[in-house]
């Protein structure tokens, strides 16, 4: 390893912060960018909620400021087209620019080398490149808001032909082209990260860091990396084909006999098939759901074991469950297409795999509960978030069973039931775990602790407001309320549900406001947080054996690993008179 990589602090500002070789700085780049995109995605969600509770009412403040621009009409109201842009871009941003990069680019980059005992990623250059490609993708998507006809409005799923035919809806003009480029870049970046993670975990583990001694966070990143490397290229292929359809006049997804609103024949030579897009898109995008949740499962496992002061229950089963989720995750995509016109016989196969994928998810929940059994639970902030993750993930997991049962799915497909389901998994699950992770590793990143009172307030209000926002969406779905309606009040049969929309909106505003507490805590703690020792939580992982904040080259000397990461309250620790023992501590006599 060269001297420059060993001490990046000696590098110039540009080299250090714009083309960093330090995986931690790359992670910070992701964190900051993700935070900005999350603020944007969250703002879009607030506008969506305003429109659903008060359809046709001018949006306070922003409506007046942005009349006739972006999503607003001349009276500062959200137009039906603006509404579709809001939902499309909210979903796109939150999935491709926030959750995937947060969990992999952010936590993966920061934690993998620290947890395996390496000084950096296997391919630091690729790592720095991956970030910039991600940012480029994000900026292309962001730029699409400023196009004359606006951003894409065909939904984050971009079903053809709506997304392809520019006369079908205004956003399917250049907005959709920008969308395709942005997604291609974000996906490309994700694949590069995945390869890097695989190589790092496979080849750069410290001596003694056997597969059975890897922390769950790293295991989950490994499994996720397989998804990123194997599934994302299919997305790249799909968006490339759609790009060709749009720009070069091919017709991969456009059937023969397609007509526009003036009944004129369109679609190039025809011969394509709209369902091909759905198959290709979901072949990536269902695994993407696991990219969104597996790292969170890993994080939660680490946090729960640490604060239960007890070894993780069923380590091997936890790994096996993640591997099973990966295997099955590749063969469940068709459950998004039960009513698409796909052969009903295929649907029965996808129903089977979808039901079965509940088993490994269940195993994980039972093992977390097993870890808490007869534990010594410290209700620290990271632990509270991890417990919230488990609780919310249970709700999201259970509601998935309804969707696996095809006859029931027919009714709830494309309704708010689905919205409730995946927000419980991704927001209640992954994002709560991410908040836990931030509170947990913040001392390692900054050398300071996060403020407890602010953290508690954020946790409690967020959890309450989250449930207020997303639980009633199950009720809307049961009532048959479709997603992506600019207003649901046009339908007579949906009228009795409207009061829930109002309640949801108020909860969502509270949820949005609560995030400012987190922001304040972040800024305050960065400046004035209590100074953190190397190992403030009494945790076993290698990252806690080095000073806080972690030095540029991580480990002065590459550690030697003697045991797994979850040896809490064991005989070895007892010999040292405490309930933890670091992975690299020599066995006490």
């Amino acid at each position, binding site marked *: 390893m060269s001297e420059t990589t060993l001490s990046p602090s000696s590098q110039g500002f540009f080299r250090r912060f714009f083309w960093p070789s330090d995986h931690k700085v790359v992670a910070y780049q992701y964190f900051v960018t993700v935070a900005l995109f999350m603020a944007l995605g969250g703002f879009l969600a607030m506008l969506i909620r305003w429109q659903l509770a008060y359809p046709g009412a001018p949006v306070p403040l922003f409506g007046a400021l942005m009349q006739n621009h972006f999503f607003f009409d001349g009276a500062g109201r959200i137009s039906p087209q603006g509404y579709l842009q809001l939902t499309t871009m909210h979903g796109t941003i939150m999935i491709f620019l926030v959750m995937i990069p947060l969990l992999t680019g952010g936590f993966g980059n920061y934690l993998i080398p620290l947890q395996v005992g390496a000084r950096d990623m296997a391919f630091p250059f690729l790592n720095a490149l991956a970030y910039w490609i991600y940012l480029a993708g994000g900026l292309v998507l962001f730029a699409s808001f400023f196009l004359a006809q606006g951003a894409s409005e065909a939904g984050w799923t971009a079903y053809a032909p709506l997304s392809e035919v520019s006369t079908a809806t205004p956003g399917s003009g250049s907005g959709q082209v920008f969308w395709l480029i942005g997604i291609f870049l974000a996906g490309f970046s994700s694949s590069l990260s995945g390869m890097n993670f695989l190589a790092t975990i496979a080849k750069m583990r410290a001596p003694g860091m056997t597969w059975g001694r890897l922390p769950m966070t790293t295991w989950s990143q490994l499994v996720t990396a397989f998804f990123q490397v194997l599934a994302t290229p299919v997305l790249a292929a799909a968006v490339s084909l759609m790009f060709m359809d749009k720009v070069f006049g091919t017709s991969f997804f456009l059937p023969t*006999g397609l007509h526009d609103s003036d009944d004129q024949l369109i679609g190039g030579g025809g011969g394509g098939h709209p369902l091909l897009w759905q198959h290709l898109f979901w072949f990536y995008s269902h695994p993407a759901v696991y990219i969104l949740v597996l790292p969170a499962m890993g994080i939660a496992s680490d946090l729960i074991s640490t604060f*239960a002061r007890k070894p993780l229950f*069923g380590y091997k089963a936890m790994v096996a469950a993640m591997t099973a989720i990966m295997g099955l995750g590749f063969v469940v995509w068709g459950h998004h297409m039960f009513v698409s016109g796909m052969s009903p016989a295929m649907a029965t196969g996808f129903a089977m795999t979808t039901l079965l994928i509940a088993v490994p998810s269940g195993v994980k929940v039972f093992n977390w509960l097993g870890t808490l059994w007869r534990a010594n*639970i410290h209700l620290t902030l990271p632990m509270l978030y991890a417990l919230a993750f488990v609780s919310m993930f249970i709700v999201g997991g259970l509601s998935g069973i309804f969707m696996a049962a095809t006859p029931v799915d027919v009714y709830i497909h494309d309704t708010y039931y689905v919205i409730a389901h995946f927000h419980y998994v991704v927001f209640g699950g992954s994002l709560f775990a991410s908040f836990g992770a931030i509170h947990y590793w913040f001392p390692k990143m900054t050398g300071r602790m996060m403020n407890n009172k602010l953290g508690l307030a954020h946790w409690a209000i967020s959890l309450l407001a989250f449930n207020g926002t997303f639980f009633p969406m199950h009720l809307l779905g049961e009532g048959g309320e479709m997603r992506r309606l600019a207003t649901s009040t046009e339908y007579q049969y949906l009228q009795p549900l409207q009061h829930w929309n109002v309640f949801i909106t108020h909860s969502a505003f509270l949820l949005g406001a609560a995030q400012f507490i987190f922001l304040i805590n972040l800024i305050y703690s960065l400046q004035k947080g209590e100074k953190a020792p190397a190992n403030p939580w009494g945790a076993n992982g290698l990252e806690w054996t080095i000073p806080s904040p972690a030095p540029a080259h991580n480990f002065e000397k590459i550690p030697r690993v003697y045991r797994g990461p979850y040896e809490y309250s064991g005989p070895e620790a007892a010999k040292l008179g405490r309930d933890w023992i670091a992975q690299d501590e020599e066995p006490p006599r």
Partner: protein
Amino acid sequence: MRDKRRWILAALALGFAPGAAWAALDFGTLAPDLNSAYGGQVDSLYGLLFKLVLLLFIGTQGALALFVLLFRHKKGRAALYSHGHPAAEWIWTLIPVVLLTGLYFQQKKLWDLMRGPAPGAAPLTVQVFAEQFAWHFRYAGPDGVFGTADDFMTVNQMHVRAGENVEIHESAKDVIHSFFIPQARLKQDAVPGMLSSAWFEMDKVACWDLKRQTLVYFTPEELNPKKVALEGFALNAQKKDATGEKSYRYLPFGKASKVDMLYEGKIVRLPPGDADYVQCPVEIACSQLCGIGHYRMIGYLYVDTPETYSRWWKQMVKDKRRDDESKWTGIWDKDYPQFNQP
């Protein structure tokens, strides 16, 4: 600090309680089911899943809460040093496998019924052609063959007979739409370039109770003693407040002194003031994002008694009703003649 945290946990639990109770009041209520062929089975499968999930929910969340309370840190407490319990792990892996496999077969039976051919007598076939933002319906007319001059076509208006199987053959002109009748537990995408089909059967007629100004559903037999107006009334919607919630009323419309009314299984002419009910449609929704007007792509399905259906059918045939004919002859018949095969 620990004491404070306990207070916050308690407050949170209390905060949850009223919300949960409120939500529970509404939970488990799907839109009314009028599909007598398999709607009840869909609902009971939903109910079964609901009970199963509720049990798992209470079990797991209960355990989570209980363990956190029981095993929270106290001075002198030491955690159990254990890496797992293989027997327990096998049990909680295999039980879900068995349970979910059973569920698979349970749901497959119903799925095969729903998506297989309609049982019994030949169903009424209605062609559905979706476009931004309207539903076009075509009936085969007296000769029973599609693509002939006696077909009749309507826009956003579909009629079926109560108790009769209906098969829809659908496609789309421009983008994907989804034909969704919540009360029929039916949803099927209409995809350009391909024909998809599904069937359903409704056994109740939707009526507006003029006295209570509310929607009610009756079987044709239950309708016998009631006076149901078939014309002369119009729906009036009034926005209640900024949330867009509306109140609905059916009000007399036009100046006719007598209107068609269904009474004791016959169509009779009676003054509008005699009506107890007005026949009204259930909504057909589009559940697949199809563009800017997606939110108002609403069709209307009238479930008819034999008498009201025959009244409507005769009217259509007599009028040679061919709304937006060019969509059918210029696009569907021209580009997809195979869709007209029985």
